[in-house]
Each structure stands twice: as C-alpha cells, then as structure tokens.
C-alpha cells in the first residue's frame, strides 16, 4: 500500500514540475515586470538595481528554483491589476469556488447515480425515456446557456431565486461560508445546478450503461437463483460493481467542474477564483494567472492520486499482487 502511494506521487511530480515551468516561463518572459514595477520614468541605473534585486540577472535554473521555493510557501508576488498579494486574493475567493464545486458534485452524484440505476433497471418505462431525453439536453447545452436559461425562468420570470452573488456569508475563521444563511443557500441553487447538470447527465448515462452490462453477468443470475431479494441484488451486487468506472469519471470530472466554474461564476457573478481568473486573463495579469494555473494543476494531480487510491480500496484485484490479475 505504502509503496503504491509513493510510486504514484513520483509519477505526479513531473506533471507538476512541467506546469510549474510553464507558469514560471509566463512570469519571466511575458511582459516586462521591471517596466511595470518602475512605472514611466526610470534611469538605467535604477533598472539595473531592480533587476539585480529581483534576481533577474541570475541564470534561468536559479530563478526557477527560487520561483518553486516561493510557490511552495504560497508566495506569488503582487497582482498587476489589484496591487495586492496574489496569495491573499486567491485565499479570499477559494471558499466561494470550493463550496460551489462541492455542492455541484454532490448534486451530480446524489441525483445522477439513482437516476442511472433506475434507467438501467427499468429500461423501457416512460420515466426512463424522459430521463434519457433530459440527459441529451444536459449534454448538448453549453454551460453558460444553461445558466442563462435558469436565470430567465427562476430569477426573471418567477422571481424565486437570486441570479447573482453569494447572498449573506458567515465567517468561520478565514473561511467565509454561504451554507449557514438562508440567502446564501438560495444563491447557491442556480449556480450549483448550472455547474452540476452536465456531470449529472454524464454520471447517469455511465451508471445506466454499467448497470445494464453487470445485470447480464452470471453472478447476478446466481444471486437471483439463490433467492436474494431484488434490493440486495441490485444494490449489494450490481451497483457495487459498477463503481470502478464511476469513480474514474467522477474523479476526472471534478477537474472539469473546477474549470467550468469559471463560466458559471461569470454568468452568476459568483465571487470565486474562476471570476478572478477570467478578470486576470482580460487584464493580462500574469502573476494571478500563473498562480491559478499551478493551483489547478495541484488540484488535478491530487484528485488523480485520490482516484488511484480509491481504486485500490474498491477493486480487490489490485490489492492481491498487482499485475497477476486479469487487469
């Protein structure tokens, strides 16, 4: 187990280093940080002094090592646009994005899996057909249009839910949460649906396909022959064995949720990291962009690692001598 974890971490490191290199190259070669920091008027001597202060005259690899050292400590310098430390900006907005992504993921799983099981078991019922048609809509609508449609119906026409912002938030230490106030929860509904809908339909289709596959196997027939109740067969035997592909896709989709949070946050003016990133792209604010890039890479790599570990927990074949089994 331990060796498995260590080998996975060593596989993840090159990815992180490559992304760090890209983000450092953005820092170092795009735009001229010295000119930005000095403003309009400066002498060559001032410029040289600042260049050596910042260590820009050192060799590339030394600079890169310094960059990594700073990044590990969460130090990314000042935002060009807001003149505030990038780390502070991101820390302020992270709770909003994480709460949104978490709610969307929970929604997608809590609704998607039961819908998938149902449509897999009762393939020809009218409700299954309705779910499938609905899922086709979820897959083909772009995220921002789903958001706009939801706003039009529930905020403009019906006036039930707010269409922008987070509502009232409560501070728990440095974490600001919207879960604890009524307006915060209400503000979360539309963005979470917008963000989670695609994942929901994806999970539903996947669980449905896997269920249909598993229900045909011999051990399910055997379980039925043993006289086990339907409940035990469906949930204890069938659903459990559909979980490996579901975990893979859900893990990978968590990354997609964070990426599409950029779009959702723009539609709903949700004050999270995605909105910060898109404003930074518009203003060519390199420090924020490169910090965000590294952070996202870290999140992706961590998610992949967790997915691998979950395999280990879910699939017993991996535990007994890997490589010997059929997979």
């Amino acid at each position, binding site marked *: 187990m331990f060796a498995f974890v260590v080998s996975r971490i060593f596989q993840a490191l*090159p*990815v992180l280093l*490559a*992304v760090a290199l890209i983000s450092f190259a*953005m820092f170092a070669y*795009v*735009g001229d940080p010295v000119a930005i920091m000095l403003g309009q008027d400066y002498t060559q001597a001032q410029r040289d002094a600042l260049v050596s202060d910042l260590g820009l005259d050192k060799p590339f690899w030394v600079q890169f090592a310094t960059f990594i050292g700073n990044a590990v400590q969460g130090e990314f310098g000042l935002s060009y646009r807001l003149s505030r430390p990038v780390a502070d900006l991101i820390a302020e907005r992270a709770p909003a994005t994480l709460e949104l992504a978490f709610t969307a993921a929970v929604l997608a799983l809590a609704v998607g899996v039961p819908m998938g099981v149902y449509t897999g078991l009762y393939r020809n019922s009218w409700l299954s057909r309705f779910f499938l048609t609905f899922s086709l809509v979820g897959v*083909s*609508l*772009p*995220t*921002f*249009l789903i958001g*706009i*449609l939801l*706003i*039009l119906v529930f*905020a*403009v026409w019906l006036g039930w839910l707010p*269409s922008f912002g987070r509502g009232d938030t409560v501070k728990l230490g440095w974490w600001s949460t919207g879960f604890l106030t009524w307006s915060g929860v209400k503000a979360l509904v539309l963005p979470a649906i917008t963000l989670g809908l695609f994942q929901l339909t994806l999970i539903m289709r996947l669980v449905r396909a896997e269920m249909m596959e598993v229900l045909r196997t011999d051990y399910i027939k055997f379980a039925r022959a043993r006289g086990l109740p339907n409940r035990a067969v469906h949930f204890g035997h069938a659903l459990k064995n559909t979980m490996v592909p579901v975990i893979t896709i859900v893990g990978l989709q968590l*990354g*997609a949720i964070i*990426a*599409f949070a*950029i*779009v959702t946050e*723009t*539609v709903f003016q949700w004050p999270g990291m995605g909105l910060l*990133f*898109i404003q*930074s*792209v*518009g203003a*060519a604010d*390199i420090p924020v*962009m490169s910090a965000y*890039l590294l952070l*996202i*890479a870290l999140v*992706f*790599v961590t998610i*992949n690692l967790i997915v691998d570990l979950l395999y280990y927990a879910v699939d017993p074949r991996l535990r007994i001598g890997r490589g010997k089994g059929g997979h």
Partner: protein
Amino acid sequence: MDAAVKRFFDSDLWFSFTRSPVTVVSAIVAAVCILGAVFAPWIAPHNPFDLASLNLSDAFKPPAWSEDGAREYVLGTDDQGRDVLSAIMYGARVSLLVGLSATIFATLLGVTLGLLAGYVGGALDSLLMRICDIQLTFPSILVALLVDGVVRAALPREVHAEIALFVVIFAIGISEWPKFARTVRGSTLVERNKEYVQAAVRIMVSHVLPNVLGPVLVVATLNLGLAILSEATLSFLGVGVPPTQPSLGTLIRIGNDFLFSGEWWITIFPGVALIMMVLSVNLLGDWLRDALNPKLR
C-alpha cells in the same frame, strides 16, 4: 464524373445515411445553418453593421409574433435597433469561421506530430505523448483560456486587437491537437508494422497518411462542434473574438445584459442558433463514426 456520382450513391456510407432519420434531419439543419451563415451578406434581411440603416426608434422590438412586434424584424431587434435574425446570421459566420479554422489548425498540427511520433518512435514519441498526457489532464477550455491570456499579455494592445481573431483560432487549435495526435499515432503504429511500410522508408506521407485519415475525419467532425462551443464560451467570457466581429457567443453576452429588463429574445435566439448548429454537427459526427467503423457494420 457520372461514374463517381453513381459510386457515391451506391456506397455503404450513403446507404447508412438514408437509413437514419436523425442523421438526415441533422444534415438538413447543419446545411441551413452553414448556408445561412456563408451567404449572410446576400440573404440576411438587414445589414447589422450598416450604421446608416439602424434606427433607434426600432430598438427593443419583440419577435414578430408578439403584440408589439414588427413584421420586418422576425426575431425582434436589440438595444440599437439591429435585426436579431441578421445579427445571428452574421454571428454564425464568425462562429463557423473560427470553429472550422481552429479544427483545421488542430488537425494539421495533431496529424503531423502524431505521424512523427508513431513513425519515428523512441524519445520523440515519448516526449510528444508525455506532452499530450499533461495537456489532456486539463479540460480544453482551460487550455484555450490560458493560451489566449498569455498571448494577450505578450502582445501590445493595438497589435492584439488587430489579430484577435487569429489568437482565438490559435488558442482553440492548441487546446485540441492532442486528440488528433493520439488517434494518428495509434493508427500509425498499426500501419508501420505492416509489410508494405517496412519495404520502404519514404512512405509515411504517401501510404501511411491515407490509411489514418478515416479516424481523423471522425475526430475532426466531433471536434468542430466542440471548437464552435469553445469559441462561444470564450467570447461569452469576453476574451474571444473582438466586439467589432461579434460571434454567436458575443451576441449572447451582449443580450445577457437585457435579460432582466425582459428583452429575452436578444440573448435566447442566438443561443438557440448555437445549439442547433452544434447539435446537428455532433449528431453528424456520431453517425460518421459509426458508419466508418468496420466493426459496427
């Protein structure tokens, strides 16, 4: 010529096409979208860029079938009195142009690198595939956003404004090449070990390439829809095509501001047009994938 036409109508491809009503309908919808976009300057009822023809008293007209609608503006008008239908036709032109160019760019780049990786093998292969792996870890829209942001930062503002359209094409193309490279590399590896290739060295382009084109065509069709959506998303976020050449995404973003005052048609109709275009292209891609797949025949 006649023989070629006859061969086409006798082919399996044409047969499977006529056997699938969904595919025929999507082909018709796609054709309407594409023709409407391509011939917009000649068939659009108004020219949305001709300032002289705009009349502010026509602003915010609802669609023709509602009470206050005017018959000459079928889908209503926007805040400046522009005809929404004409704006959609011109916008679809930009969307299609960017989507097609980005897909062609991604195809060329991906096919070249994939052929090289598969044919040369060794260190080059591992390097290219490693890059693919890393890039595929991230969703393509994120890569496109990032490339767009970096180019925006690297270029002076005036230069960027001039070539913004190409920047978007480049960004979307870069975000999609790994899929092509992987497909082509896979097929190349299969072809390379066949005897006809081993017999000669300078055979990559003349013999291997034609044999990997089928899968590439399928990936390209499925990617066209994705590229159009990526462009729409970038433009909706305000970092895509310049406002002087609005695409469907730009129209949706502009219309979004009027959602709350009740002028829903300004944003919803471009959205519907976008969905129709993307959905029909995707369904065609699905059909092409199944039709060209010998295992499913």
